[in-house]
């Protein structure tokens, strides 16, 4: 298992380096001038030169990349040239908000989607199965920003059951959870459908396998067969998808962050890209890419722990 994890970690590191290098090249190909965006006409040539120097843009690309990588290895992502604050600090301020939102969304989606898919597989062909299929596809089909807006209008503005904006008072867990409900539903609703469909399909496949028939022949209770034998195997592709889902949600959270005026890494990154604030863009992308890679690594490890065959196959 250790060899497997080490091998996956090395691949993850390689992916991270590649992603950062690609992005580094891309952001310097796109025209734009951060000083002009941030300062407007007040951006004098002296100020523009000053800001370029602060961002290291006066250095060759390779030097800039080298400095960034060396700094990142020490946990130093540079300085925001406008505010003078450390990029690491700025990114880490925002990251927990997005992580909490993503985990709440994916957690809620799993809690609903897995039983739903399992139930649909067990009751295959029934009206409940067909209803689940329709509801799942509907959840997948509706864009999350539309869900977000209507939830906000309906439950936030019209009925005022939930706050329309913000992330709640710092230190007040109940208030923060209250603020989390609508954005988490908006972000996670589509995943309920995905997970339900995936679990159903996997369960149907697994239920046809010989070891399930053998278990039935031994007279094991149906509940034990489903939970301990079928679901355990059927969850493997779901875990992989959840790993990818967490990664994509880190950036997909942008809609929820904008609609609900929540702080978060997506909004930070979006504004930094528009303003050509390169140090923030690089720092935020490095962190989100890191989490994406980590989440896929974690899903690989969980898969391997659930299915020893994977450890053997991928360890070779």
């Amino acid at each position: 298992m250790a060899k497997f994890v080490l091998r996956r970690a090395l691949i993850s590191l390689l992916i991270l380096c590649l992603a950062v290098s690609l992005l580094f090249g891309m952001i310097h190909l796109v025209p734009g001038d951060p000083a002009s965006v941030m300062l407007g006409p007040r951006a004098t040539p002296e100020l523009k030169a000053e800001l370029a120097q602060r961002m290291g843009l006066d250095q060759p690309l390779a030097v800039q990349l080298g400095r960034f990588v060396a700094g990142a290895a020490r946990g130093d992502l540079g300085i925001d040239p406008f505010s003078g604050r450390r990029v690491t600090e700025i990114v880490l301020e925002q990251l927990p908000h997005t992580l909490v939102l993503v985990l709440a969304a994916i957690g809620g989606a799993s809690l609903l989607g897995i039983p739903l898919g399992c139930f649909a597989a067990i009751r295959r062909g029934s009206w409940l199965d067909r209803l689940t299929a329709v509801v799942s596809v509907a959840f997948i089909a509706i864009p999350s920003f539309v869900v977000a807006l209507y939830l906000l209008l309906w439950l936030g503005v019209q009925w005022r059951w939930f706050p329309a904006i913000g992330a709640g008072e710092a230190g007040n867990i109940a208030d923060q959870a209250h603020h989390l409900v609508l954005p988490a539903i908006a972000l996670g609703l589509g995943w309920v459908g995905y997970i339900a469909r995936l679990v159903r399909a996997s369960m149907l496949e697994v239920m046809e396998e010989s070891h399930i028939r053998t278990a039935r022949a031994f007279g094991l209770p149906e509940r034990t067969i489903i939970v301990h034998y079928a679901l355990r195997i059927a969850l493997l592709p779901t875990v992989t998808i959840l790993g990818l889902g967490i990664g994509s949600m880190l950036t997909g959270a942008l809609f929820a962050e904008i609609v609900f005026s929540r702080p978060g890494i997506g909004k930070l990154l979006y504004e930094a890209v528009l303003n050509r604030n390169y140090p923030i863009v690089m720092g935020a992308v490095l962190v989100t890419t890191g989490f994406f890679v980590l989440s896929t690594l974690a899903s690989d490890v969980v898969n391997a722990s659930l299915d020893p065959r994977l450890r053997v196959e991928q360890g070779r």
Partner: protein
Amino acid sequence: MLRCTVHPALPVKLRLPQRQTDESRRSFLRRSALALAGLAGGGSARVGWSSRGAILHIRNYVDVSSLDPLSTLSLGEGMINRAIHAGLLRFRPDGSWKPQLDAAAHFEQLDATRYGFRLKPGQMFNNGFGEMTADDVKFSFERMVDPAMQSLNAPDMGPLDHVAVHDRYSGTIVLRTPYAAFIPVAASGPAGVLLSRRAVMSVGGRFTTQPPCCSGPYAFKSWQAQRKTVLERNPAWTGEPAAFAEIHVYAMNDDKAGELAFEAGQLDCCQISVESVDPFERDMPPESTLRVLPSGRNYWLGMNQENPALADIRIRRAIQHAVDVEAVLEAAWFGLARVSTGPIPEGMTGHRRTASIAPRGNPELAKRLLEEAGAGLPLRLTLDVSARARELTTAQVIQWSLKKVGIEAEIRAQDQSTFLTIGREDLGDGWRDVQLFLQDFVGMSDPYYSMTWFTTSQHGLWNWERFSNAEFDRLHDIALATTDESERGRAYERMQILMEESGCYRFLTNGVMPQIFRNTIQPAFRPDGYAILRDFRPSTGVA
């Protein structure tokens, strides 16, 4: 000499906004569609707030990046700074650009380059940093222009040389050259707030989002990134007590989010988008007021006179007469904004009453001018524009106007950051290809800031029209040096006439800034629509 005016405190309590659950299905659906349309079109941003009890909740169109005057980037940060720090002067809350005394008991211009001041005794910095002295004024002003401090806002201080301290409370501000914008921009604006030398040096000489001291009616309490900044009543403030116990300033850069938050009762005052004015007016949230305030921005169609296709002034004049500005304002501003007569908005020294070109234009004259110039029709031109909803609508209306006289304009939309580089000389020869473009600049509290970008020295920087006129440049220098307001006014009026006569500009509008607020508060706004936080009051008679 300027004298300070005093506003009586209003000791009243505020009432929670009534819970509204009786919204009609129709209005709900309309707002839904509006919100969706707004999100699809890409939101912009502005300011807003709300009050419950003694707390005012307000929206800001940006998050705080820094509260150090060295590096504040926006008027949104300046709005907060002007509530937590005193300045020598400040703007009156009466919607005019007239300054009044703030921390200064006396302020006067001694000659073209010197300003004398005397502070009111007994004004205290909070957090135990003692009384405000003339040395704090020296520190606050000189650090802004100190090259070692690398201030992003150094230009606001103009040619400031130094501040001479005479005694504990008085001193003289000395400029290197005359700078007529010193009072409205430096002494009264966000760059001119007063900090305690001892406090700032105790944190290493500069700070970001945690001001070490405050000298205004409100004090900084907390800041949560991308969420809100909380101000509280400053116990060290010796002037008229702050009207609210706390002000919560929410960072919301999307107009639609702000509007929904206002409707949900989470804000008391909020700048709304222009397209939402009509729906709000038809279905106003209860106990609310909507005001469409003027904005200090300047929107215009620019023409690069050094591009061969536009080198003939008759072609540029034809384009000026071809554009139907009324149609632009109807389509892009929903008929709320007025036609501008130049970069200087109404209410500011130098504003022109009328422009020489009719708002509707004169297509027949445009056709004649094109014929005289021998332009082969259809004349094909490019129109560069920032890819924002309003700019794209404006460009489309201009495209339609031009087509009527035989000009085919190809709209080239770019994101704002890229767009802002198209006229730059230091980035290559791309500026030579620029023909028509839609541009807008935010103005400040002095006409200097509206006009300085069009001098010959701005070629390749911000003067993308490559407009060059010796008389314009001379008048610009005169207007900056003189303190005679009528002379300045005449100079700026003439400069705008010269701009228009060059054919390089078709002035469109100075824009508007709609603000909606609860009737439980009495807001205060600058003439450009930005809030003056310290002058917000609870409404009288609110229980």
